[in-house]
Protein backbone atom coordinates (compact mmCIF):
# COMPACT_ATOMS: atom_id res chain seq x y z
CA UNK A 1 0.00 0.00 0.00
CA UNK A 2 1.21 3.48 -0.68
CA UNK A 3 -0.25 6.50 1.01
CA UNK A 4 -0.30 9.20 -1.66
CA UNK A 5 -2.02 11.94 0.32
CA UNK A 6 -3.22 12.57 3.85
CA UNK A 7 -5.45 15.57 3.99
CA UNK A 8 -7.36 17.48 6.63
CA UNK A 9 -10.46 18.74 4.92
CA UNK A 10 -13.79 19.31 6.60
CA UNK A 11 -15.65 18.86 3.32
CA UNK A 12 -14.32 15.28 3.10
CA UNK A 13 -15.51 13.94 -0.29
CA UNK A 14 -15.86 16.93 -2.60
CA UNK A 15 -14.87 18.34 -5.96
CA UNK A 16 -11.26 19.20 -5.22
CA UNK A 17 -10.63 15.68 -4.02
CA UNK A 18 -12.41 13.75 -6.77
CA UNK A 19 -11.85 16.02 -9.77
CA UNK A 20 -8.38 17.27 -8.96
CA UNK A 21 -6.39 15.27 -6.40
CA UNK A 22 -7.49 11.73 -7.24
CA UNK A 23 -6.62 12.02 -10.95
CA UNK A 24 -3.50 14.03 -10.20
CA UNK A 25 -2.13 11.44 -7.79
CA UNK A 26 -3.57 8.52 -9.68
CA UNK A 27 -5.13 7.37 -6.43
CA UNK A 28 -7.51 4.41 -6.57
CA UNK A 29 -8.66 4.23 -2.99
CA UNK A 30 -10.14 6.84 -0.68
CA UNK A 31 -10.31 6.33 3.07
CA UNK A 32 -12.64 8.63 4.97
CA UNK A 33 -11.34 8.57 8.53
CA UNK A 34 -14.16 9.96 10.59
CA UNK A 35 -15.99 8.50 13.56
CA UNK A 36 -19.36 10.05 12.74
CA UNK A 37 -19.37 9.05 9.09
CA UNK A 38 -18.23 5.53 9.94
CA UNK A 39 -21.54 5.07 11.75
CA UNK A 40 -23.83 6.96 9.38
CA UNK A 41 -24.96 4.69 6.55
CA UNK A 42 -27.22 7.25 4.88
CA UNK A 43 -24.37 9.73 4.70
CA UNK A 44 -22.07 7.04 3.35
CA UNK A 45 -24.55 6.26 0.59
CA UNK A 46 -24.59 9.92 -0.45
CA UNK A 47 -20.80 10.03 -0.54
CA UNK A 48 -20.53 6.73 -2.37
CA UNK A 49 -22.79 8.06 -5.13
CA UNK A 50 -20.14 10.66 -5.97
CA UNK A 51 -17.34 8.16 -6.45
CA UNK A 52 -16.81 6.49 -9.81
CA UNK A 53 -16.45 2.76 -10.24
CA UNK A 54 -12.85 1.68 -9.99
CA UNK A 55 -12.14 3.86 -6.99
CA UNK A 56 -12.46 2.00 -3.72
CA UNK A 57 -13.82 3.86 -0.74
CA UNK A 58 -13.68 2.99 2.95
CA UNK A 59 -15.39 4.73 5.84
CA UNK A 60 -13.41 3.99 8.95
CA UNK A 61 -13.18 5.13 12.54
CA UNK A 62 -9.95 6.94 13.29
CA UNK A 63 -9.08 4.22 15.76
CA UNK A 64 -9.46 1.54 13.11
CA UNK A 65 -7.19 3.15 10.56
CA UNK A 66 -4.01 1.28 11.38
CA UNK A 67 -5.74 -2.06 11.08
CA UNK A 68 -7.39 -1.07 7.79
CA UNK A 69 -4.10 0.13 6.37
CA UNK A 70 -2.44 -3.19 6.98
CA UNK A 71 -5.33 -5.17 5.47
CA UNK A 72 -4.96 -7.15 2.26
CA UNK A 73 -7.57 -5.11 0.41
CA UNK A 74 -5.35 -2.06 0.43
CA UNK A 75 -2.17 -3.92 -0.42
CA UNK A 76 -1.91 -2.86 -4.05
CA UNK A 77 -3.71 0.42 -3.67
CA UNK A 78 -2.72 4.06 -3.90
CA UNK A 79 -4.53 5.48 -0.92
CA UNK A 80 -5.79 8.96 -0.18
CA UNK A 81 -6.89 9.45 3.41
CA UNK A 82 -9.22 12.23 4.53
CA UNK A 83 -9.63 13.62 8.03
CA UNK A 84 -12.19 16.25 8.86
CA UNK A 85 -10.21 17.86 11.68
CA UNK A 86 -6.68 18.15 12.97
CA UNK A 87 -7.49 16.21 16.15
CA UNK A 88 -8.33 13.12 14.07
CA UNK A 89 -5.05 13.27 12.20
CA UNK A 90 -3.18 13.57 15.47
CA UNK A 91 -5.15 10.70 16.96
CA UNK A 92 -4.32 8.51 13.97
CA UNK A 93 -0.62 9.26 14.30
CA UNK A 94 -0.75 8.59 18.03
CA UNK A 95 -2.24 5.20 17.28
CA UNK A 96 0.76 4.31 15.24
CA UNK A 97 -0.19 5.32 11.72
CA UNK A 98 2.79 6.62 9.84
CA UNK A 99 2.03 9.73 7.81
CA UNK A 100 5.01 11.56 6.34
CA UNK A 101 3.09 14.67 5.46
CA UNK A 102 -0.34 16.07 6.11
CA UNK A 103 -2.04 18.55 3.82
CA UNK A 104 -4.36 21.26 5.10
CA UNK A 105 -7.17 21.62 2.59
CA UNK A 106 -10.38 23.26 3.65
CA UNK A 107 -11.01 24.10 7.28
CA UNK A 108 -13.91 26.45 7.54
CA UNK A 109 -14.22 27.20 11.22
CA UNK A 110 -15.80 30.58 11.71
CA UNK A 111 -16.22 33.23 14.30
CA UNK A 112 -13.51 33.15 16.93
CA UNK A 113 -11.08 31.39 14.64
CA UNK A 114 -8.16 32.76 12.72
CA UNK A 115 -8.09 32.73 8.98
CA UNK A 116 -4.62 31.79 7.83
CA UNK A 117 -5.30 31.29 4.15
CA UNK A 118 -8.12 31.53 1.68
CA UNK A 119 -9.55 28.18 2.73
CA UNK A 120 -8.06 27.51 6.14
CA UNK A 121 -9.34 28.82 9.43
CA UNK A 122 -7.61 27.54 12.56
CA UNK A 123 -8.78 27.37 16.17
CA UNK A 124 -6.08 27.62 18.85
CA UNK A 125 -6.46 23.88 19.48
CA UNK A 126 -5.82 23.21 15.80
CA UNK A 127 -2.55 25.10 16.10
CA UNK A 128 -1.66 23.01 19.15
CA UNK A 129 -2.56 19.75 17.33
CA UNK A 130 -0.56 20.63 14.27
CA UNK A 131 2.32 21.65 16.48
CA UNK A 132 2.31 18.23 18.12
CA UNK A 133 2.07 16.55 14.72
CA UNK A 134 5.12 18.40 13.60
CA UNK A 135 7.01 17.48 16.74
CA UNK A 136 6.47 13.78 16.07
CA UNK A 137 7.87 14.22 12.60
CA UNK A 138 4.85 14.82 10.39
CA UNK A 139 5.35 17.61 7.90
CA UNK A 140 2.39 19.98 7.87
CA UNK A 141 1.74 21.82 4.64
CA UNK A 142 -1.13 23.56 2.94
CA UNK A 143 -1.99 23.12 -0.69
CA UNK A 144 -5.55 23.45 -1.85
CA UNK A 145 -5.07 21.93 -5.30
CA UNK A 146 -1.89 20.68 -7.01
CA UNK A 147 -1.55 23.84 -9.08
CA UNK A 148 -1.28 25.95 -5.91
CA UNK A 149 2.04 26.48 -4.24
CA UNK A 150 2.74 24.11 -1.38
CA UNK A 151 3.10 26.23 1.72
CA UNK A 152 4.58 25.36 5.05
CA UNK A 153 1.97 25.99 7.71
CA UNK A 154 4.47 27.90 9.89
CA UNK A 155 4.65 30.54 7.20
CA UNK A 156 0.89 30.81 7.21
CA UNK A 157 0.44 31.30 10.94
CA UNK A 158 3.27 33.79 11.29
CA UNK A 159 0.91 36.72 11.53
CA UNK A 160 -1.15 35.16 14.31
CA UNK A 161 -0.65 36.54 17.82
CA UNK A 162 1.21 34.30 20.24
Amino acid at each position, binding site marked *: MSLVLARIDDRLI*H*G*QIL*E*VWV*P*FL*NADCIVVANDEVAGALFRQAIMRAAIPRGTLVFFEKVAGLKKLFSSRELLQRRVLVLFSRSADALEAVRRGLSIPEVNLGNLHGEGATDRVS*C*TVWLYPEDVANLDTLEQVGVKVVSQ*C*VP*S*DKKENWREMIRHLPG
Partner: protein
Amino acid sequence: MFLFELIAAALISIIAGIDRTAGPQIMLSRPLVAAPLTGLVLGNGMIGLEVGVLLELIWLAWVPAGASIPPDDTQIAVGATFLSVVFTEYWKADPTAMAVFAVLISCPLGRIGVFFDRLARGYNDRGNSRLLRSVKNGVLEEVEGVHLLGLLYFGLSSVLSFLVIVLAGTVILLNFYPLVEKLLLMGSNFLKTAFPLIGAATIIGTIRLGHTVTLFLVSFMSTLLLLWYF
Protein backbone atom coordinates in the same frame (compact mmCIF):
# COMPACT_ATOMS: atom_id res chain seq x y z
CA MET B 1 -15.94 57.23 -32.76
CA PHE B 2 -16.79 53.63 -32.05
CA LEU B 3 -18.75 54.76 -29.01
CA PHE B 4 -21.79 52.73 -29.99
CA GLU B 5 -19.62 49.66 -30.41
CA LEU B 6 -18.05 50.21 -27.00
CA ILE B 7 -21.41 50.48 -25.26
CA ALA B 8 -22.83 47.46 -27.07
CA ALA B 9 -19.78 45.35 -26.22
CA ALA B 10 -19.88 46.56 -22.60
CA LEU B 11 -23.49 45.39 -22.35
CA ILE B 12 -22.52 41.94 -23.59
CA SER B 13 -19.59 41.95 -21.21
CA ILE B 14 -22.03 42.49 -18.33
CA ILE B 15 -24.50 39.83 -19.45
CA ALA B 16 -21.82 37.24 -20.17
CA GLY B 17 -19.90 38.24 -17.05
CA ILE B 18 -22.92 37.75 -14.81
CA ASP B 19 -23.59 34.39 -16.40
CA ARG B 20 -20.04 33.35 -15.52
CA THR B 21 -20.77 32.93 -11.80
CA ALA B 22 -23.71 34.89 -10.49
CA GLY B 23 -26.34 34.12 -13.11
CA PRO B 24 -27.93 30.92 -14.39
CA GLN B 25 -24.64 29.79 -16.00
CA ILE B 26 -26.13 28.82 -19.33
CA MET B 27 -22.63 29.14 -20.83
CA LEU B 28 -23.00 32.64 -22.27
CA SER B 29 -19.69 33.20 -20.54
CA ARG B 30 -17.78 30.70 -22.69
CA PRO B 31 -15.54 32.42 -25.26
CA LEU B 32 -17.03 30.38 -28.09
CA VAL B 33 -20.44 31.83 -27.19
CA ALA B 34 -19.58 35.32 -25.92
CA ALA B 35 -17.14 36.23 -28.70
CA PRO B 36 -19.38 35.42 -31.69
CA LEU B 37 -22.24 37.16 -29.89
CA THR B 38 -20.12 40.28 -29.48
CA GLY B 39 -19.02 39.99 -33.09
CA LEU B 40 -22.59 39.70 -34.35
CA VAL B 41 -23.71 42.73 -32.40
CA LEU B 42 -20.76 44.75 -33.70
CA GLY B 43 -21.51 43.61 -37.25
CA ASN B 44 -18.69 41.09 -37.73
CA GLY B 45 -19.75 37.69 -36.51
CA MET B 46 -16.97 35.81 -38.26
CA ILE B 47 -14.16 37.58 -36.46
CA GLY B 48 -15.95 36.87 -33.19
CA LEU B 49 -16.12 33.22 -34.15
CA GLU B 50 -12.41 33.29 -34.85
CA VAL B 51 -11.65 34.79 -31.42
CA GLY B 52 -13.95 32.22 -29.83
CA VAL B 53 -12.10 29.32 -31.48
CA LEU B 54 -8.74 30.71 -30.38
CA LEU B 55 -9.80 31.07 -26.76
CA GLU B 56 -12.37 28.39 -26.04
CA LEU B 57 -10.14 25.53 -25.00
CA ILE B 58 -7.37 27.47 -23.25
CA TRP B 59 -8.95 27.65 -19.78
CA LEU B 60 -11.77 25.19 -20.34
CA ALA B 61 -10.18 22.46 -18.23
CA TRP B 62 -10.22 24.59 -15.13
CA VAL B 63 -12.80 23.38 -12.61
CA PRO B 64 -14.15 26.07 -10.29
CA ALA B 65 -13.29 23.91 -7.30
CA GLY B 66 -9.79 25.09 -6.59
CA ALA B 67 -8.55 28.22 -4.92
CA SER B 68 -6.50 29.39 -7.87
CA ILE B 69 -8.52 31.45 -10.31
CA PRO B 70 -7.46 31.66 -13.97
CA PRO B 71 -7.72 34.85 -16.06
CA ASP B 72 -11.27 35.86 -16.92
CA ASP B 73 -11.63 34.29 -20.36
CA THR B 74 -15.12 35.75 -20.75
CA GLN B 75 -13.89 39.32 -20.67
CA ILE B 76 -10.82 38.38 -22.72
CA ALA B 77 -13.18 37.04 -25.39
CA VAL B 78 -15.48 40.06 -25.41
CA GLY B 79 -12.58 42.52 -25.19
CA ALA B 80 -10.48 40.84 -27.88
CA THR B 81 -13.50 40.66 -30.21
CA PHE B 82 -14.21 44.33 -29.70
CA LEU B 83 -10.57 45.22 -30.38
CA SER B 84 -10.36 43.06 -33.49
CA VAL B 85 -13.64 44.32 -34.96
CA VAL B 86 -12.78 47.95 -34.37
CA PHE B 87 -9.18 47.80 -35.56
CA THR B 88 -9.77 45.66 -38.64
CA GLU B 89 -12.31 48.27 -39.65
CA TYR B 90 -10.11 51.21 -38.69
CA TRP B 91 -6.92 49.97 -40.36
CA LYS B 92 -8.43 47.66 -42.93
CA ALA B 93 -6.14 45.08 -41.38
CA ASP B 94 -6.14 41.34 -41.97
CA PRO B 95 -8.86 39.93 -39.71
CA THR B 96 -7.04 36.74 -38.70
CA ALA B 97 -3.80 38.54 -37.91
CA MET B 98 -5.74 41.12 -35.93
CA ALA B 99 -7.77 38.51 -34.03
CA VAL B 100 -4.63 36.59 -33.10
CA PHE B 101 -2.87 39.73 -31.90
CA ALA B 102 -5.89 40.99 -29.98
CA VAL B 103 -6.23 37.64 -28.20
CA LEU B 104 -2.50 37.50 -27.46
CA ILE B 105 -2.49 40.85 -25.71
CA SER B 106 -5.86 40.38 -24.01
CA CYS B 107 -4.86 37.12 -22.34
CA PRO B 108 -2.34 38.55 -19.86
CA LEU B 109 -4.60 41.59 -19.37
CA GLY B 110 -7.41 39.21 -18.42
CA ARG B 111 -5.71 38.55 -15.11
CA ILE B 112 -7.19 41.84 -13.95
CA GLY B 113 -10.49 39.97 -13.99
CA VAL B 114 -9.33 37.90 -11.02
CA PHE B 115 -8.81 41.09 -9.03
CA PHE B 116 -12.23 42.55 -9.79
CA ASP B 117 -13.90 39.20 -9.21
CA ARG B 118 -12.35 38.97 -5.74
CA LEU B 119 -13.45 42.52 -5.08
CA ALA B 120 -17.06 41.67 -5.97
CA ARG B 121 -16.99 38.61 -3.71
CA GLY B 122 -15.48 40.74 -0.97
CA TYR B 123 -18.39 43.15 -1.21
CA ASN B 124 -20.71 40.17 -0.96
CA ASP B 125 -18.95 39.25 2.28
CA ARG B 126 -20.01 42.60 3.68
CA GLY B 127 -23.56 41.95 2.53
CA ASN B 128 -23.44 38.61 4.28
CA SER B 129 -22.27 40.09 7.58
CA ARG B 130 -24.99 42.73 7.37
CA LEU B 131 -27.63 40.12 6.62
CA LEU B 132 -26.53 37.88 9.48
CA ARG B 133 -26.86 40.82 11.86
CA SER B 134 -30.26 41.90 10.63
CA VAL B 135 -31.71 38.38 10.71
CA LYS B 136 -30.45 38.05 14.27
CA ASN B 137 -32.40 41.21 15.06
CA GLY B 138 -35.53 39.80 13.49
CA VAL B 139 -35.42 41.81 10.27
CA LEU B 140 -36.27 39.32 7.52
CA GLU B 141 -36.90 41.55 4.53
CA GLU B 142 -33.32 42.21 3.50
CA VAL B 143 -32.49 38.84 1.97
CA GLU B 144 -33.67 39.69 -1.51
CA GLY B 145 -31.97 43.08 -1.52
CA VAL B 146 -28.60 41.83 -0.29
CA HIS B 147 -28.70 38.87 -2.65
CA LEU B 148 -29.57 40.81 -5.77
CA LEU B 149 -27.01 43.47 -4.95
CA GLY B 150 -24.47 40.73 -5.68
CA LEU B 151 -25.59 40.75 -9.32
CA LEU B 152 -24.69 44.42 -9.46
CA TYR B 153 -21.24 43.77 -8.01
CA PHE B 154 -20.52 40.92 -10.42
CA GLY B 155 -21.85 43.00 -13.32
CA LEU B 156 -19.64 45.92 -12.34
CA SER B 157 -16.62 43.70 -11.92
CA SER B 158 -17.22 42.29 -15.41
CA VAL B 159 -17.52 45.62 -17.14
CA LEU B 160 -14.51 47.01 -15.29
CA SER B 161 -12.36 44.06 -16.41
CA PHE B 162 -13.68 44.57 -19.92
CA LEU B 163 -12.79 48.26 -19.87
CA VAL B 164 -9.28 47.62 -18.58
CA ILE B 165 -8.70 45.02 -21.29
CA VAL B 166 -10.07 47.32 -23.98
CA LEU B 167 -8.25 50.47 -22.85
CA ALA B 168 -4.87 48.87 -22.22
CA GLY B 169 -5.38 46.71 -25.31
CA THR B 170 -6.00 49.79 -27.46
CA VAL B 171 -2.82 51.43 -26.23
CA ILE B 172 -0.78 48.31 -26.93
CA LEU B 173 -2.41 47.76 -30.31
CA LEU B 174 -1.84 51.32 -31.47
CA ASN B 175 1.81 51.16 -30.51
CA PHE B 176 2.82 47.63 -31.36
CA TYR B 177 0.56 46.22 -34.04
CA PRO B 178 2.22 48.16 -36.89
CA LEU B 179 5.62 46.90 -35.69
CA VAL B 180 4.72 43.23 -35.73
CA GLU B 181 2.16 43.21 -38.52
CA LYS B 182 4.54 41.52 -40.98
CA LEU B 183 5.41 38.76 -38.54
CA LEU B 184 1.74 38.32 -37.72
CA LEU B 185 0.74 37.99 -41.35
CA MET B 186 3.30 35.24 -41.77
CA GLY B 187 2.63 33.53 -38.46
CA SER B 188 -1.10 33.96 -37.94
CA ASN B 189 -2.03 30.75 -39.73
CA PHE B 190 0.27 28.78 -37.45
CA LEU B 191 -0.94 30.57 -34.34
CA LYS B 192 -4.56 30.16 -35.37
CA THR B 193 -3.90 26.42 -35.28
CA ALA B 194 -1.59 26.49 -32.26
CA PHE B 195 -4.09 28.11 -29.89
CA PRO B 196 -6.70 25.34 -29.98
CA LEU B 197 -3.92 22.74 -29.96
CA ILE B 198 -2.51 24.25 -26.76
CA GLY B 199 -6.02 24.22 -25.34
CA ALA B 200 -6.39 20.58 -26.31
CA ALA B 201 -3.08 19.82 -24.58
CA THR B 202 -4.28 21.47 -21.35
CA ILE B 203 -7.47 19.43 -21.45
CA ILE B 204 -5.67 16.16 -22.15
CA GLY B 205 -3.20 17.08 -19.42
CA THR B 206 -5.98 17.64 -16.90
CA ILE B 207 -8.27 14.73 -17.74
CA ARG B 208 -6.43 11.75 -16.30
CA LEU B 209 -8.28 8.58 -17.08
CA GLY B 210 -5.13 6.49 -17.26
CA HIS B 211 -5.40 6.04 -21.01
CA THR B 212 -6.19 9.61 -22.02
CA VAL B 213 -3.08 10.25 -24.09
CA THR B 214 -3.31 6.94 -25.95
CA LEU B 215 -6.96 7.51 -26.73
CA PHE B 216 -6.17 10.99 -28.00
CA LEU B 217 -3.25 9.88 -30.16
CA VAL B 218 -5.15 7.00 -31.72
CA SER B 219 -8.00 9.29 -32.61
CA PHE B 220 -5.64 12.00 -33.89
CA MET B 221 -3.65 9.65 -36.10
CA SER B 222 -6.59 7.82 -37.55
CA THR B 223 -8.45 11.04 -38.36
CA LEU B 224 -5.36 12.49 -39.99
CA LEU B 225 -4.86 9.39 -42.12
CA LEU B 226 -8.53 9.38 -43.11
CA LEU B 227 -8.35 13.05 -44.11
CA TRP B 228 -5.29 12.38 -46.27
CA TYR B 229 -6.77 9.37 -47.87
CA PHE B 230 -9.91 11.17 -48.99
